[in-house]
């Protein structure tokens, strides 16, 4: 049942013209179907493969980082107070909120890839929707953690939830933060369900191919899915509803996050364009993160080179390029509007961004978010090189983190009371931020051993629906509508 690598990567060269069969196979779709059983086995094998010592080493290191940097430091933070972090007047908000926005941004690409591309029936999405959806959930976990780290009295966080009480006290619905919490909770719940629905057939498949505790585990998760026609219909309906419903949720979440800033009276924050700007920014970092995840999965897990191919990197690379352009547009737009506004504090802030002590970060942000993606993703060959696109993904994420850092602690340095201006120097936030990254990776590594990272039924569905047909001398892709 071993899958022959040659089959995929070194397809016999017999090209006639640009529309040759092989060309189509390579460029667009996985039109080199394998038997269903074999494909299922490949996915199972990638999951059940006995972890190497390297895997355990990485898991060990990450666990240590999570336990020490995230939870131990957090307990210190809770006991000793926010003074352990670098926040002060006027930088009341620091890296914790930078990380919150950053992780929410990352979580966006998951939904974007799986919901929007599903709604628009972008076929190339099929093999990596699962990995992207996992990113949504895992990213939101980090975002939630970061928000709780930020709170001065986190043990009272439940006050932000509306619950009936004798004191007639409710959360303030005027506050963007209340909506933040509601939106993030909604998003976390809906994206988890949206992750779970397409997972059902795959865990059902896994259930049928595993023994021991895994069988119990998958049996519980599969909810008794047997693959009858009725079940498929229900599943498809549910997924369709969710795919459509989660899109506005996704847009609302980051718009609401942007309100935290846009609704404030601070110079540089009070901007009407922050909503779409933040969404595009979120997609920018999210796509970057997704491509990194894909590159890592492809590079480290067995059989993944069949499922995740250069053509997918090419497709996502194009998307990244477009999003980078959109981001540049919004950035420029925001900048121009603020600059033309001529408010003296905003002028001061813009000047501080570029020429202040953290000016290097402003330029680094532009290089990472615009210059490098444009230079590399323009080239189809480079775009189809997984490690290169993955590197660009990392660079974009660094740039987007810088962007949030500039928007939060650097921008709040400049306010309307020059007597209070002060530069932020992070403290315990840095190790705790690293802790969230470690937890994110760790969750992925655990997930890769527990659930199929490739939605194998979706891939099969795509392969069934598409077929190469010859019309005379032309080879074309035929599509049969399944849904």
């Amino acid at each position: 049942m071993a899958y022959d690598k040659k089959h995929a990567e070194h397809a016999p060269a017999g090209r006639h013209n640009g529309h040759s069969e092989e060309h189509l196979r390579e460029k667009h779709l996985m039109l080199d179907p394998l038997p269903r059983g074999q494909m299922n086995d490949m996915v199972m094998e990638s999951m059940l493969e006995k972890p190497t010592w390297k895997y355990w080493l990485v898991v060990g290191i990450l666990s240590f980082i999570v336990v020490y940097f995230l939870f131990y430091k957090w307990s210190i933070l809770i006991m000793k107070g926010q003074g352990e972090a670098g926040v002060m007047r006027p930088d009341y908000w620091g890296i914790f909120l930078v990380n919150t926005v950053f992780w929410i941004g990352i979580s966006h690409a998951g939904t974007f890839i799986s919901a929007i591309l599903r709604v628009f029936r972008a076929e190339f999405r099929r093999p990596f929707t699962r990995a992207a959806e996992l990113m949504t959930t895992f990213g939101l976990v980090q975002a939630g953690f970061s928000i709780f780290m930020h709170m001065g009295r986190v043990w009272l966080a439940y006050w932000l939830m509306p619950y009936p009480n004798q004191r007639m006290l409710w959360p303030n619905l005027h506050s963007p933060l209340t909506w933040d919490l509601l939106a993030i909770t909604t998003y976390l719940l809906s994206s988890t369900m949206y992750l779970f629905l397409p997972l059902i057939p795959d865990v059902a498949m896994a259930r049928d191919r595993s023994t021991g505790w895994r069988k119990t585990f998958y049996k519980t998760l599969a909810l008794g899915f047997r693959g009858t026609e009725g079940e498929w219909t229900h599943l498809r309906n549910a997924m369709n509803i969710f795919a459509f419903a989660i899109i506005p949720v996704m847009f609302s979440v980051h718009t609401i996050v942007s309100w935290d800033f846009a609704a404030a009276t601070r110079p540089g924050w009070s901007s009407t364009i922050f909503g779409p700007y933040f969404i595009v920014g979120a997609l920018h970092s999210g796509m970057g993160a997704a491509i990194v995840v894909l590159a890592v999965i492809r590079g480290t897990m067995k059989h993944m080179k069949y499922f995740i191919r250069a053509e997918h990197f090419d497709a996502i690379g194009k998307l990244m390029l477009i999003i980078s352009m959109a981001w540049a547009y919004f950035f420029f737009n925001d900048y121009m509007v603020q600059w033309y506004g001529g408010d003296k504090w905003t002028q001061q802030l813009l000047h501080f961004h570029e020429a202040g002590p953290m000016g290097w970060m402003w330029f680094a942000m532009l290089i990472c978010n615009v210059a490098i993606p444009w230079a590399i993703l323009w080239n189809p060959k480079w775009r189809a090189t997984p490690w290169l696109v993955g590197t660009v993904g990392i660079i974009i994420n660094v740039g987007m983190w810088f962007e949030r850092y500039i928007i939060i602690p650097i921008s709040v340095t400049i306010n309307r009371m020059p007597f209070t201006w002060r530069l932020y120097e992070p403290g315990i936030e840095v190790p705790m931020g690293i802790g969230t990254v470690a937890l994110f990776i760790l969750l992925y590594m655990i997930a890769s051993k527990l659930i199929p990272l490739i939605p194998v039924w979706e891939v099969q569905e795509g392969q069934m629906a598409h077929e190469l047909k010859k019309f005379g001398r032309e080879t074309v892709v035929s599509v049969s509508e399944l849904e």
Partner: protein
Amino acid sequence: MIKSIFDWLKQPLGLIAVGITVLTLFSIAAYGIYTTQQAPEQPIQFPHQTHVAFGIQCLYCHPGASKGPAAGLPSQAKCWACHNQIAKTETSALLAPLKEAVQSGTPIQWVPVAQVPDFVQFNHRAHIAAGKNCEDCHGDMSKVTIAQNPQVFNMGWCLNCHVESAGEDHEKLVKLSDCGTCHY
């Protein structure tokens, strides 16, 4: 390993064990909360009912209530003013601590019963002036020995009364439901 634990827990015995654990935790929590609502131990088992039965007014010993924020505890000099004329003071074991305190000049360490947290700025005077009686909040002292709270002094209880007493008077309602009336 994990499976075996799961399996064991699914047995009737396992289910019972789970039930007992949950019940124990719940009981401890409930008991902990219950105990906080009990009257604490006092240095002297002060019989309020006896004093009330003699017709002593609340304000005789707690005169601050009508004048300012705190009702206050009577000084032992005040206790002694009556008690040194009462023969029983010499004999009663209950009163021995009082005698001891007065003679040695050490203050009596009462444990406060009716308390609000530090962040609540309570003023007795305003409540007495508004026509509230002591027993409305502190219960009927003719029925208890050492003071006991008839209810928990929590915000819902305070606010309920505030809103009710405001009635239809909008201005009064504004004042009585303002956060700054009690919290600053």
